[in-house]
């Protein structure tokens, strides 16, 4: 299907500014690609510490995405489907990590789960020291990534409305059955795109991780930390690894775009 370019109703100057903005976003990417030392690319990204950092990043990002789904889905449902006193306040608190500087988030986590933190001793007694462990990386990533899933899902739940759920209930379905057979399938595209966004955010997490989890090779040093560290000693490696991160991010955003495009396709069939 070939699309012809149309500028119907859009003032020319808007298109010009849009183009300038797009160039501003894309140019740094070109600069990185331009700076890559291609003959050395494979050796640069396959050093032991690089591979360890990449694997740790993927592992922790997957784990925190799972945590985002486990806790984020119920939060989104409660926010979208119930009314209680102070709901607006709770919503803005839940979305706080979105606007909080990650370093501040890391400090907050440190004073919560750190050895001297609010819950640190509890976890210590249980034999789970959290600060400066891989667990800390996962917690930091979940903290900064969960608002993306909640926002995306809550919006979709509100748009979907409760009419299908009401019908399902009058057909004899219990609330849990309604949730799994009607509510979640209806918002599945939003859930998937929200989860992918969370994954991408977790993958790129830097500030909170460094503050709360430190930078220990193979344990807490994720790819962004590795890149930052290499920038001092081996800029070529830093650039090569940056490109890897960009590639993963582009791939993930592509997936998210495809997932959120699914309902549009379905709606087109209906009309």
């Amino acid at each position, binding site marked *: 299907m070939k699309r012809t370019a149309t500028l119907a109703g859009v003032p020319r100057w808007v298109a010009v500014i849009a183009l300038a903005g797009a160039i501003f976003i894309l140019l740094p990417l070109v600069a990185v690609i331009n700076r890559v030392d291609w003959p050395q690319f494979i050796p640069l990204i396959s050093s032991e510490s690089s591979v360890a950092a990449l694997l740790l990043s993927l592992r922790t990002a997957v784990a925190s995405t799972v945590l985002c789904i486990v806790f984020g889905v119920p939060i989104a449902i409660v926010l979208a489907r119930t009314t209680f006193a102070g709901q607006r306040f709770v919503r803005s608190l839940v979305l706080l990590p979105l606007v909080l500087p990650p370093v501040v988030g890391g400090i907050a986590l440190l004073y919560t789960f750190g050895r001297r933190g609010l819950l640190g001793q509890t976890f210590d007694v249980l034999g789970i020291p959290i600060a400066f462990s891989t667990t800390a990386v996962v917690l930091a990533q979940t903290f900064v990534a969960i608002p993306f899933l909640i926002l995306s899902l809550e919006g979709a739940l509100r748009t979907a409305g409760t*009419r*299908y759920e*009401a*019908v*399902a*209930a*009058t*057909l*004899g*379905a*219990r*609330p849990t*059955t*309604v949730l799994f*057979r*009607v509510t979640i*399938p*209806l918002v*599945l595209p939003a859930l998937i795109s929200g989860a992918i966004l969370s994954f991408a955010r977790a993958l790129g997490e830097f500030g909170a991780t460094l503050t709360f989890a430190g930078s220990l090779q193979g344990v807490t040093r994720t790819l962004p930390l590795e890149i930052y560290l290499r920038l001092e000693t081996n800029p070529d490696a830093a650039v090569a690894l940056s490109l890897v991160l960009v590639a993963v991010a582009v791939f993930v955003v592509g997936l998210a775009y495809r997932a959120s495009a699914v309902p549009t396709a*379905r*709606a087109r*069939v*209906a009309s």
Partner: protein
Amino acid sequence: MTFAIDASLAERDFRVSLEVGTGETVAVLGPNGAGKSTLLSIIAGLLRPDFGRAELDGSLLFDIAASPRDGTRRRYLQPHARGVSLLAQDPLLFPHLTVLENVAFGPRSSGSPRRDARSAADRWLAAVDASEFASRHPAELSGGQAQRVAVARALAAEPGLLLLDEPMAALDVAAAPALRKTLKRVLAHRSALIVTHELLDALVLADRVIVMEHGRIVESGPTRQVFERPRTRFAAELAGLVLLTGVKTVDGLLTSGGVDIRVAGSDVPSGTAAAVALRPSVVMVSRERPRHPSLTVIEGCITDLEPRGDVIRVRSEELAADISPATVADLDLTNDDPVWFSFEAAETTIYPL
């Protein structure tokens, strides 16, 4: 008696007491905002009444005491446990399930094994002539087909009471008769409440009619009786009749507006509240006051002229007359014109209120 409800909801000024017999279909009529959908929502459990009680086939749907101190009466069954299915204006088929899975949803939810649920769904799809759509997705159905599937889905849940909220309202003119026919077949011997704006739906589908206004039931009776001898303007309007109410006199009716109406002999005792119903086609309109002694004459201002088929309906505040376009032209009628409406005593029906 299958179903009985007595419920109040102050927020919507709603207070209704109603019974539906076993196998009886009751049509709920009334202007917009009369509380018809509120009634269905309360029965289905989607809206909680302030107080009241409802029972279906011997099981208690809710029982909420009027006074909060009376703590012993407090029971409220969730929608899924009520055995009440709701069919709305929109089919609301689950878009992610096939037609067959949609219909099997009810049986599956009540714990039937997959195979039994499937065969029940097959059976109900056949009952509404929709078997050929079984493997399609809802997006591939027309409005009429989707609503037929929705009927099958509601029935497959084996409800003790079926609620239909204007099931034909969203359909185009061509699809409505087919669905009406399907509903007539599946509603026979089934307890159901159907909200409708159509006289035809009530006549074809319902054994009994209730009319609601301002959150109250203002009229109730067997379908034919309500439409032949309406007691409210709404029912009269729907039946295409003019309704005049007042007090029975020796040889007629004295309306609340002070007009004396002559009627043919009747056995309604004098001094009691009564109503006269007449068809607009028997009412005549003239510029001069008619002198014939057998005519009842009422003066009125024209409020509306509405073409209806080959006649024009001339309305005043309390009367309506169907006259030919030629007569309208001869009399040069327009809105706000004062005219005389007249009709023969023999054309009236008088009955007690």
